[in-house]
């Protein structure tokens, strides 16, 4: 069963990968994506990013997405950790892991998970710029298109 967490605390990619590897006995491949806070956006320096979420609904939405990946690429073992709160450049935002017998389903499930997390889980990012201004990140049409690939 998929492991999902929505938390303020950082995660350790190595520890998460080790836990998944142990759980996914028959896996020959593990796909992974880690999102990181960038230091600048459109040539504007960023000092922090705030991630807001909808407590309760977010955990449920992430679990639905994770279980959908496990169902589509069965056998597939999924682990998702998504952070919330105030994060600074270089900090982890999200970790997606998918283990499967071969690399094709492992990497496909990884792509699916991050595409759907970006468009179907209630998180909102606010960027804090070096000049003191802030802006809510706008949803990108490319993200909707990427998510639509998976039906």
């Amino acid at each position: 069963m998929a492991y999902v967490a929505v938390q303020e605390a950082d995660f350790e990619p190595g520890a998460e990968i080790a836990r998944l590897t142990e759980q996914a006995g028959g896996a020959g491949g593990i796909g992974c994506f880690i999102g990181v806070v960038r230091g600048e956006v459109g040539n504007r320096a960023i000092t922090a990013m705030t991630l807001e979420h909808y407590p309760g609904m977010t955990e449920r939405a992430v679990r639905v997405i994770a279980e959908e990946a496990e169902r589509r690429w069965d056998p597939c073992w999924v682990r998702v950790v998504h952070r919330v709160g105030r994060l600074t450049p270089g900090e982890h935002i999200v970790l997606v892991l998918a283990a499967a017998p071969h690399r094709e389903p492992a990497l496909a499930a990884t792509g699916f998970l991050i595409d759907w997390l970006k468009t179907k889980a209630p998180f909102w990012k606010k960027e804090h710029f070096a000049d003191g201004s802030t802006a809510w990140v706008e949803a990108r049409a490319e993200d909707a298109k990427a998510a639509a690939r998976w039906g």
Partner: protein
Amino acid sequence: MLRLLYFAWLRERVGHSEEEVVLPSSVRTVGELMRWLAARDTVHGAAFAKPGLIRAAVNQEFAGPETELSDGDEVAFFPPVTGG
């Protein structure tokens, strides 16, 4: 009675993250609720000025304008999500 939640810039424009409302019987769907809120006062009017930019959830499931409301529902309004 409904519990309303607001997130991200919608929360900032409305000025609070949560409120309770008692609906007139004419308001039965999410779309009707958005129009009723927009007409209620200038703050909500400004926040809901562009309904195309706003998404909704009813009882923590994404919902469209046609989704019907029941007494006791938790209804959330927010911009398109940007996690990941």
